[in-house]
């Protein structure tokens, strides 16, 4: 018989305001096996843990139940506390009476009833708990970074500088990401390329960093410390070892009509291309959908002009399988599609552009060589209207509910740069709120208004009408002046909301990492573990976790690197002892469990089985504890009931259900 202690936490008023904690405590004392019960304001605090330790010593407890928050929050805390007090950590059960009870109910009587039931279930389980001992697993001293933008580059550099091998997988032909498309960066207005390209070069030259561009993660298996990842290296059709990056192939390529992804479709590129001049690696790829050779079999001009003989039309996708101890996701963002916002006439006029397109126009290496001009007729605009929050902070399903966070600052930057370079251009910005928290950010915005004379108007644009004469009529409201405005502009720039890259969903599924309704990756704890995914060994870097600017991204990238380094620095990890186990007396070696095991953890061996009235050589299932993840698929498949999950045995679960139904 167990000697169980029940500890009911108030969690300040989080639980105690909705659940009668005294009643839960009193009721606990009537449960079988319970010899001690008490409540306390904060059970997770030092004083609370001391109470648990004291009760274990005084009452000689063999198991405990803590009625508190979710086990995801404090199971480890209480297990560690119990272990220090001398009982096996797996003799601790959590009854979640906060997230599962007090937070979601209002009626005290009903909530108390439910809390009592949850407590009973946990007590019933502890009555059947047995001490478990974790095993050990090895740590592969290599990290994978998915995404080669500034977030991925910074994370890789930091991990590599600590002495660990890092692979970067980037799906486009070059690393650099969004930052490589930008012109200047706020709030210091230093040129984006000038601060990014040295980092790109550093990553490429680092002897601990290996970069796979034009590659995608295809499959992930394994677990923290020991992931196995398949990387698809897409056929580049150019031999990376032979190519000298001379660029002659791109000059000669006759297929010139594909919209340039890097320039946001503002101009075109050839079928064989490097996305931009500073690309790393400086080796082009052939876009097989656009290439005449691939479409018709004729052409082959690039191969003819290539002195290095690097063009290889026969190249095939290659799958690389590698082991990693830690994985960092740095998949970044994209700008939302504007097809649902046609009141701004984005699809109707070439002079209505997104801010990212303006970055390309303002960039000296961009399609207009940095000259500010209208895309329709090449004229220099005289009146520019910026519209903020296009799709951000949106109340309906057309856009995003969140603030994209970077738009206020880059719009102020654009407005200031334009007024600086073209002082006779009128710049008007329509905003809902100007949000500029951040070091030197508000000062930056004030400069745009006070020094550069940018006309900020609080109010939203209702409609943009392209006029037959090429101008744009902008209808808007001025909320401070309580006026409806109708103004003529030559160019309208939309601060379109940002959203996580489309590929993140698939990657999250492969990593079993959770994502929220907006497709941002969820952190293990929003405040206390902001760079870790709830999935052990997976870390988050950059906008894949939430909107952020470059300084924040770099800071988070460093933090993710530190977390990954902390993992890689360990030689061994404790494994979860809640693994499957076959009862050899009941197992008849039917193989069904191995068929359903996603981890390949089950094998079979023939051995001497001895039991009451049994003594024979028989084929039985054997579970490899290092591989088993305790998912339980085998236990429900086993036709004879021989397979059981330690710590979650069928008996324990039935006992919980019985207690709930009692």
């Amino acid at each position, binding site marked *: 018989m167990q000697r169980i202690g029940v500890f009911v936490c108030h969690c300040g008023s989080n639980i105690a305001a909705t659940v009668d904690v005294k009643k839960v405590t009193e009721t606990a004392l009537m449960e079988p096996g319970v010899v001690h019960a008490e409540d306390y304001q904060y059970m997770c605090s030092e004083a609370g843990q001391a109470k648990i330790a004291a009760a274990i010593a005084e009452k000689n407890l063999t198991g405990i139940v803590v009625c508190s928050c979710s086990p995801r929050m404090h199971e480890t805390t209480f297990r560690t506390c119990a272990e220090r007090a001398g009982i096996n950590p797996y003799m601790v059960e959590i009854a979640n009476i906060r997230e599962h009870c007090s937070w979601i109910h209002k009626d005290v009587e009903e909530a108390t009833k439910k809390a009592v039931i949850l407590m009973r279930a946990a007590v019933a389980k502890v009555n059947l708990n047995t001490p478990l001992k974790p095993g050990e697993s090895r740590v592969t001293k290599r990290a994978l970074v998915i995404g080669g933008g500034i977030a991925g580059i910074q994370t890789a550099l930091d991990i590599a500088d600590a002495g660990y091998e890092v692979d970067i997988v980037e799906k486009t032909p070059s690393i650099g990401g969004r930052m490589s498309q930008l012109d200047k960066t706020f709030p210091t207005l230093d040129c984006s390329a000038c601060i990014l390209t040295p980092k790109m070069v550093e990553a490429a030259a680092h002897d601990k960093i290996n970069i796979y561009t034009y590659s995608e993660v295809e499959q992930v298996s394994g677990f923290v410390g020991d992931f196995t990842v398949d990387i698809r290296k897409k056929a580049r059709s150019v031999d990376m070892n032979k190519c000298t990056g001379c660029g002659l192939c791109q000059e000669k390529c006759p297929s010139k009509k594909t919209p340039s992804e890097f320039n946001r479709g503002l101009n075109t590129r050839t079928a064989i291309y490097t996305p931009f001049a500073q690309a790393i690696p400086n080796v082009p790829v052939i876009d097989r959908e656009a290439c005449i050779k691939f479409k018709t079999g004729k052409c082959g001009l690039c191969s003819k002009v290539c002195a290095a003989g690097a063009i290889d039309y026969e190249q095939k996708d290659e799958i690389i399988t590698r082991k990693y101890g830690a994985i960092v996701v740095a998949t970044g963002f994209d700008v939302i599609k504007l097809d*649902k916002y046609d009141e701004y006439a984005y699809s109707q006029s070439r002079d209505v552009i997104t801010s990212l397109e303006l970055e390309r126009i303002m960039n000296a290496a961009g399609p207009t060589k940095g000259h500010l001009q209208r895309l329709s007729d090449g004229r220099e605009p005289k009146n520019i209207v910026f519209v903020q929050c296009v799709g951000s902070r949106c109340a309906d399903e057309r856009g995003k509910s969140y603030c994209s966070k970077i738009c206020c600052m880059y719009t102020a930057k654009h407005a200031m740069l334009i007024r600086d370079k073209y002082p006779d251009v009128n710049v008007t910005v329509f905003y809902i709120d100007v949000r500029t928290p951040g070091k030197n950010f508000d000062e930056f915005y004030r400069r745009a208004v006070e020094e550069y004379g940018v006309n900020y108007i609080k109010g939203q644009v209702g409609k943009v*009408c392209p006029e037959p004469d090429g101008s744009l009529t902008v209808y808007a409201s001025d909320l401070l002046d309580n006026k409806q405005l109708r103004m003529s502009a030559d160019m309208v720039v939309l601060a379109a909301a940002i959203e996580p890259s489309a590929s993140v969903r698939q990657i999250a599924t492969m990593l079993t990492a959770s994502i929220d309704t907006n497709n941002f990756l969820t952190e293990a704890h929003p405040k206390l573990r902001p760079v870790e995914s709830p999935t052990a060994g997976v870390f988050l870097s950059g906008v894949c976790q939430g909107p952020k600017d470059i300084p924040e991204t770099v800071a988070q990238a460093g933090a993710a690197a530190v977390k990954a380094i902390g993992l890689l620095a360990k030689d061994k990890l404790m494994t979860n002892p809640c693994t499957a186990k076959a009862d050899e007396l009941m197992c008849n070696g039917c193989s069904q469990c191995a068929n359903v095991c996603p981890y390949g953890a089950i094998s079979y061996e023939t051995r001497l089985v001895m039991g009451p009235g049994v003594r024979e050589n028989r084929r039985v299932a054997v579970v490899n504890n290092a591989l088993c993840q305790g998912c339980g698929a085998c236990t429900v498949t086993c036709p004879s009931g021989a397979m059981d999950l330690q710590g979650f045995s069928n008996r324990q679960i039935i006992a919980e259900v019985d207690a709930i139904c009692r």
Partner: protein
Amino acid sequence: MKYSYYPGCTLKSKATALDKYARASAAALGIELEEIDEWQCCGGVYPLGSDEIATKLASVRNLAAARDRGQELVTLCSACHHVLKRVNDDMRNVDDIRTRANNYMQLETPYAGETKVLHFLEVLRDVIGFDELKKKVVNPLTGKRIGAYYGCLLLRPGKLMAFDDPENPTIMEDFIRAIGAEPVVYPYRNECCGGYISLKEKERSKYLCLDITGSAKGWGAQMLITACPLCLYNINKAAGDVLPVYYFTELLAEALGVKEAADNE
């Protein structure tokens, strides 16, 4: 294909053209429009007051009549369509309005929004199909550059009317293509003509109508088409000299070769 048909008052007075050409075209396309008996005025404007059901009862009677005939209800006038569709939505989704309306009317079978309300343009798009329509055109309006004028009532509120994308609609442009003409897309096609404000503030409505016609003309339109008698009235009054405006059914009848017969009826 048989449908219950709700013409509405204006189609019996000022907007007879909208009605008669629709009937002739429908017949040519194999659609039977059966005018519901003893229909009543829809009210003209969707009543926004949520504490008053009296203003909605007439629409409910029309909707229930179609339900009792076991037919979908086809409309032509934008305003009627708007009112009927929105009242129907109230009867389907707003418990309070449904209960009170039914308590008052004491219909044999209480009405709960069962009728499907279709605009004639939706019948052309979703039932006949513009590709099929194109095949039935005997007199294509080749070379005509036509601006579709949607106004507001057909498109908004977008989710509820579910007629087309309220910011970038295409149904009338597709219709114009089907009858062999060339659509002219102009940004004011989904802007308001002023509606009933023309009775009180003529100048305001005029200002809006001049924006609409000016833009359409600037983009090369030779005429406008509409489904709304009030829009047609306002534009004719304020800006009729800028561009002519017709009911879409008139051009449809012309394309199908039934216009003359309809005129002689």
